[in-house]
């Protein structure tokens, strides 16, 4: 059954704005700080709900890399073991692209404004041959 509007995105945006602009202003110093942190937490969840699902693409790239099939957790643990024993490193075809893509998927939700996120996006563009 189709839910009515407004969307989760719109409701969470309203909650975050209220925490930041109304609640924070009405609270004493430490609680004001916590209200702003809470607004940031709601924004993070909002970004995650709005993100394109990327796990199946990640599992496909991982499968190709480690030469096996399985769930995301098992494949990731397998890749870590291959890195730790020296079998796989950044000269292995596909590893750099996989790690850039998965790290960007995470930081774009966790902290899109973090300084290193912009540099990593620029690196991904250059590797795709874009200016």
């Amino acid at each position: 059954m189709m839910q009515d509007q407004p969307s989760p995105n719109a409701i969470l945006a309203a909650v975050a704005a209220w925490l930041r602009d109304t609640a924070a202003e009405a609270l004493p110093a430490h609680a004001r700080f916590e209200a702003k942190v809470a607004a940031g937490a709601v924004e993070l969840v909002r970004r995650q709900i709005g993100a394109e699902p990327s796990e199946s693409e990640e599992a496909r790239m991982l499968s190709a890399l480690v030469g096996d099939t399985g769930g995301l957790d098992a494949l990731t643990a397998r890749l870590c073991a291959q890195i730790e024993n020296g079998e796989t490193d950044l000269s292995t075809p596909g590893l750099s692209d996989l790690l850039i893509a998965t790290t960007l998927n995470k930081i774009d939700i966790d902290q899109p404004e973090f300084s290193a996120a912009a540099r990593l996006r620029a690196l991904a563009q250059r590797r795709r041959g874009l200016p």
Partner: protein
Amino acid sequence: MNAAQDILHPQTTLENGLARLVPTLDPAAQGIKGLRRLSGGASQETWSFQMDGGQGYHLILRREPAAARSGGTGIGMAAEARVIKRVAAAGVPAPQIEHELTPDDGIGAGFVMLRIDGEALPHRILRDDSYAPARAKFARQAGKILARIHQSDPTGLPIPVLSPREVLDDLGHRHRAFGAARPVFSLALRWLAQHAPEPRAPKLVHGDFRMGNLIFGPEGIRGVLDWELAHIGDPMADMGWLCMESWRFGNADPVGGLGRREDLFAGYEAAGGDPVDPATVRWWEILSALRWGVIIEEMAAWVREGTDTSVERHVIARRASETEAILLLHLLEGAA
């Protein structure tokens, strides 16, 4: 201590305990006022209060939390107090300790120190106009203070001795114990092991020298706080940690977001510090990104285990990706 009272009214118990204590510091004091918990300090509790009557000193209580948490631990309150007294005597700007808690005080383990008046919030120090003079001299001043810390005599201090490789091995163990499988961390652990610096003359190392643990006035650094991770080891470690990207708070300049590495190193050497090896500092800076990532994994474990349910800890637990981005850029580009 009355356990039931402590659970129901922890602040009352603490307030009464401190009120009993202050007359031993100043016979004219009649009690305390303005007791409040300060934000920050994920591992230790920090409380601010003022002596009522007498000299009216503003005081800080630093004490161990009631419940233990997963992950890396500090050196303990008694050792921290000894380190602070040692460095203060050597001319490092550090708090003056007024009293170390005893079991008779009935308010846990810790110590009381004089409050250093000033600002520790990074965003204010990095942005407010009034701190412009402190910002201009920060990198050099930090170098000078670090040289003084590293020149302090660590003989007899009850703190660990750690080589670069031991620090790295400890991070690997903690990551495997509390974290998730992360290919970027696996690559970083391997790169760090392959490029580990040779042990150099061990010195007293602060262990957490960064924005947030430094108290500022408009004229510059007034005090170095939080000595719970002090140890004896490679002095370059403190410079690498200070330069790590997470402690730049969005600014571009590498030294705490405020200065150039060249000025940090020049200030260090001018104050008598051993010659700086920039490649070793860089190794420590990469290790520092991994170290912050492992600490974040431990904080995620606190959330998972229910030992810290604050919103702030939930959000910090989602910051491991920032350290993966820093490490991946380093591994792919060697970028600064």
